[in-house]
Structures are given as structure tokens and as C-alpha cells.
């Protein structure tokens, strides 16, 4: 029997209140882990980018297009080993227009060279390359939609209006998490031949492989210099830099998520503090007895802080136990499959779990300092008069 052991038993006296408090700590820990994982995953996305890939787009905006011939010219430049190009199609499933997934028109053969991490069985690859209406679909999206090889699907175009029919030529998986598994890739030619003359032969962006990852800065500058005197100028950057520039647009959101995670933990602390304070009020008489039989104010404080510590430990561990499967196999799996470029790896990091658990303990104890001080300062005679 120890003082902390008795404190642990004390918290079981009001089971409902303790259970609710432990749940609050657990849920706060879980959400802290999740929000911090969002920030970590997002900010570390650039680390997962391929170092030997650079992307070229219109200098002004993502939404403005470049002539396809730029891709052919870049392919001729020294240090560039492969080039592909793509257009954002903006297609939707007419059965469920709110269900977002990427639909991109590309040159299939060059795409598979530039993105070697996209894997599909050889027969499916050949089928896709030879069918102008063929589509290569990420396995996560195919599973979600129930699409199989050989199916005929129709997508409604938003940027390019009308219903567009495709044959599902293949299902792809990826060897890395930086390419999402929920994209519909299809032939750029199929899109291009359907467009009016004034919109033909334009691409949204160009992606190039380079032989020396260390030269990405130099080659990017050379690409942009090449088109500097043309009507349409370019901006070229490494895939990592592209991800980071994209991230910059969301920096306010990341800060907000950071703030929310801290506020959540702080609220948890207040709730724990309130629970402990209620317990202290109810047990004033018992603390008086302890003091009467010789326990010191520090022992009483130890009782109170011990209760908070136990709540923090139990709630924190429960939060971790729930957080790992929830993040790694629930939200994480969904985000990796559907938003792989933004969240290439959405897994609980040990340092985030340790921080969450540490904060749960720390804030539980900190929130109990005030009630503990009050309990320790109680006058013995006054405490004994109170009936619990």
C-alpha cells in the first residue's frame, strides 16, 4: 500500500465522473495525435518527393497552359532523360458528383517512364497503351468504385464538358506513397482530338526526369531561360519544391491545426482539473483525518496529484491505444490512398505519440496543482469539521 496506490483507488470512487474524464483525456490525446500527424505528414510530403524529377508549369498560374511542343523541346535538353505531360481533366462520376478523385490526361508511355513507381501488370499496360480510350485507374479508387479491368465507365467533364467514355484497361498500384492510388489516367490524345482547334495541343504541366538529382536547380533555370523570350514563360522546380510551394498556400491552415491541437489539450487539462477539484472538495474531511494522524501537507498534495497522474496515464494510454489503429489503419490509409501527394505517409510517428502521452500526463498534473495546493493548505481542525 502506497500513497499513490491509494490515490489510484480514490479515482474509482465516482466511476461515472472518472470514466468521463478518462474518455476526455483519451479523445484529446487521440485528436492531438491525429492533428499533429496531419501537420507532420503534410510538411514532410516534400521529403517523399522524387529527387530526380522536375516539374514545369505556366509562370503565372497552374491553371494556365503551355504548348505541348515545350515538352518536346525540354526532352532535347542535356541532363533530361524522360519527359511527360498532363492536363487536369476535372472529371466526375455522374453517379456521385461530390466524390472527388483526380482525372488526368497524359501520354501513357512517357508517364510510365517518368513515374516508374506506378506499377501495373504487363498485359494491362499493353492494353492501356494500345487503346486510345483506355484508362489506368488507381487500385484504391477502383476498389471504392467497384471498377474492374474491362469495364466501360463514363465520366462527366467539368473543364471539358460532356460525357466521356473510357475503357478500364488496367489497375495500378504504387511502390511509394508519394503517388496517390485514386487517380484516373487516360490518353491525352483522346482529350486533344476532341477539342476545338483553338484549345488543341496544350498541356497543363510537364514533368521531366533528370540524370543528376543534384542538378535540378541548374536544369530548372535552364528550362525557364529557354522559354523566357517566348509568349508563354515557364516556371520549373523540383518535385520537392513544387510540393513545398503548394504547402505554402496552406500554411495558415497548418498553423490553425497546430493551434487547435494545443487548445484541445488545454481544454482537457481544465476538465481534469475540475474533476480533481470536485474530488478534493468531497474528500476534505478525509484529508483532515490524514493530516490529524500525522501526514504532512506534501502528502496530501501527493494524494491529489497522484489521482491526476493516474487519470493522465490511463487516459493517455487509452488515447494511444485508440490513436494508433484509428490513424494508421483508418484515416491514414484513406489519406494515403486518396491524397497520396499531400499525405504520402500518414502514420503515427513515435515522437508524436510520446509528445501526446507526455502532454496528457503533464497537463493532468499541472491542472491538479491548484486543487492540490488548496488541499495541502487546509486547516486540520477546519477539515475535520466538514462531513464528506
Amino acid at each position, binding site marked *: *500500500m*502506497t*500513497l499513490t496506490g*491509494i490515490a489510484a*483507488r*480514490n479515482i*474509482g*470512487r465516482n466511476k461515472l465522473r472518472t470514466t468521463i474524464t478518462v474518455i476526455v483525456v483519451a479523445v484529446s490525446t487521440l485528436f492531438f495525435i491525429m492533428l499533429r500527424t496531419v501537420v507532420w505528414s503534410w510538411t514532410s510530403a516534400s521529403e517523399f518527393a522524387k529527387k530526380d524529377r522536375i516539374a514545369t508549369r505556366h509562370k503565372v498560374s497552374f491553371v494556365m497552359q503551355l504548348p505541348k511542343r515545350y515538352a518536346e523541346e525540354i526532352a532535347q535538353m542535356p541532363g533530361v532523360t524522360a519527359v511527360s505531360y498532363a492536363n487536369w481533366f476535372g472529371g466526375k462520376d455522374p453517379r456521385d458528383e461530390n466524390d472527388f478523385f483526380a482525372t488526368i490526361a497524359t501520354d501513357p508511355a512517357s508517364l510510365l517512364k517518368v513515374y516508374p513507381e506506378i506499377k501495373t501488370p504487363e498485359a494491362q499496360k499493353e492494353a492501356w497503351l494500345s487503346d486510345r480510350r483506355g484508362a489506368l485507374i488507381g487500385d484504391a479508387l477502383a476498389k471504392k468504385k467497384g471498377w474492374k479491368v474491362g469495364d466501360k465507365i463514363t465520366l462527366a467533364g467539368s473543364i471539358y464538358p460532356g460525357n466521356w467514355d473510357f475503357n478500364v484497361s488496367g489497375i495500378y498500384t504504387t511502390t511509394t506513397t508519394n503517388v496517390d492510388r485514386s487517380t484516373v489516367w487516360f490518353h491525352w490524345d483522346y482529350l486533344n482530338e476532341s477539342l476545338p482547334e483553338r484549345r488543341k495541343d496544350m498541356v497543363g504541366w510537364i514533368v521531366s526526369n533528370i540524370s543528376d538529382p543534384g542538378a535540378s536547380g541548374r536544369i530548372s533555370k535552364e528550362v525557364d531561360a529557354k522559354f523566357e523570350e517566348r509568349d508563354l514563360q515557364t516556371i520549373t522546380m523540383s518535385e520537392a519544391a513544387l510540393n513545398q510551394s503548394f504547402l505554402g498556400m496552406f500554411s495558415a491552415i497548418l498553423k490553425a491545426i497546430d493551434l487547435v491541437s494545443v487548445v484541445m489539450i488545454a481544454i482537457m487539462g481544465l476538465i481534469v482539473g475540475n474533476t480533481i477539484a470536485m474530488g478534493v472538495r468531497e474528500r476534505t*474531511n*478525509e484529508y*483532515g*483525518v*490524514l*493530516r*490529524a*494522524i*500525522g*501526514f*504532512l*501537507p506534501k502528502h496530501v498534495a501527493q494524494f491529489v496529484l497522484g489521482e491526476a497522474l493516474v487519470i493522465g496515464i490511463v487516459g493517455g494510454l487509452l488515447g494511444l491505444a485508440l490513436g494508433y489503429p484509428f490513424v494508421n489503419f483508418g484515416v491514414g490509409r484513406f489519406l494515403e490512398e486518396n491524397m497520396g501527394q499531400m499525405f504520402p505517409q500518414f502514420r503515427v510517428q513515435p515522437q508524436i505519440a510520446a509528445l501526446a502521452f507526455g502532454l496528457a500526463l503533464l497537463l493532468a498534473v499541472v491542472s491538479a496543482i491548484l486543487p492540490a495546493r488548496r488541499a495541502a493548505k487546509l486547516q*486540520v*481542525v477546519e477539515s*475535520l469539521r466538514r*462531513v464528506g
Partner: protein
Amino acid sequence: MSESNTGNGKSDIITLKGVGKSFWRGKERLDVLKDLDLTMKEGSFEALMGPSGSGKSTLLNLIAGLDVPTSGSINVAGSELGNMSEGDRAGFRAANIGFVFQTYNLMPVLTAVENVELPLLLVKNMSAGERRQRAEKALKLVGLEGRMGHYPRQLSGGQEQRVTIARAIVTDPKIIVADEPTGDLDRESANDILNLLGRLNTELGKTIVMVTHDPAAAERARVTHRLDKGALAL
């Protein structure tokens, strides 16, 4: 008024000289005890009686070292309590005083034996096994060897008070202070408790100071002090 013998020639264990105790209620000063002189012999069994507000519980608190006097001096078991720090008085209480309360004040999350063991947590260098052994011995002494694993809610009022007495004697203190120990008990249970206190006094030589309203309880004491308006009634 003091009655009967006061300790068969033994030395004084409690000495109060000119003790006063005042409280402030806002700007109003309340003199609860006034210039009180009192001695109690080692091994005596003494009762404090008096009407509500007469100062008997305040006097008991001063003797037990729970509070300090506003004036005068209190010497208990060789310690001058008025000069002691809060921490020193806590140590004094742990070593010298056993408490028996009217409302038992047992910890509901602890079993009978664990409640009795509680004061022993303060004893340095005592193993868990020794603590348990001493707690069990104290419970046997009060006749509760069959209730050691019971929680307070599983015990009757009289049994709870016996556990309190076991807790009071487990550290082998010289003095037991009892504040209305039979106040919440029926007559039969009250008699049992008073018999037990009597045995602790006669067989173990404990000095017992008991506050009571009950004349029947007071009769068990060898000395009865009557207080009225903060002074001993003559």
C-alpha cells in the same frame, strides 16, 4: 469539576497553563478558552463534558496538537506544543496521539486492515510485511480478526468505530483522544466501544482523553472535567 482519582501517583503527561484560545469572526473576537489550567496523569482516563460551545472540542484539539493556543502553554508527552511548527506537530501527533472520531472517518477505498495500516506509512524503515502484521494485531485486539478484508461500507457502525480504535493504537501512541466516540452508536455498540477504551486504558496503560455529551460514557472515565463558557467549572 474534577472527580475521582487522577492517576495513581504517575507523572503528568498533559499540562496546560493559562491556556486561552480565541477565534475571529470578522472583527469580533470569540474567546473560546480562557486562562485554563489543567493537568492529566499518564495512564488516566479523563472525560471532557460540557454544553455545546463550551470549548471542549477546542481543548481536545489543543491537547492533540491539531491547533495551537492563543495564549498560555501546553506540554503533552514532554513536548511544548505552542512552540512547534506545523510539520513538527504532525510528527508529534504521528508518534504520540491516536485519534477516535465520532464519524469514524475511515477511508472508504481501503479495507479494515488497510485503514489500520495507514498511519504506519509514516513510520520510516518499516517493511510492508511488518506494517500488515501490526495492523492485523491491532484489529485482533479490538475483536475484528474476522473483518480484516471488509470495506467500511460492509461494517456496522460499532465495527467501524473499532477499526478507528485499531487505527488509533497501531502506532502504539501514549495518548488516545476520542471526540464523541459513541455519538453515532446505539447503546449496545456504545457500551462495547467504551469497554474497549477502558481495556486500552487499564490493560495497555493508554492515557485516554474523551469528549462526550453522554453522562453514561463519562462515567467510564476516572476523571471528568466540566467546561462551561471556556473555563473549567468548579
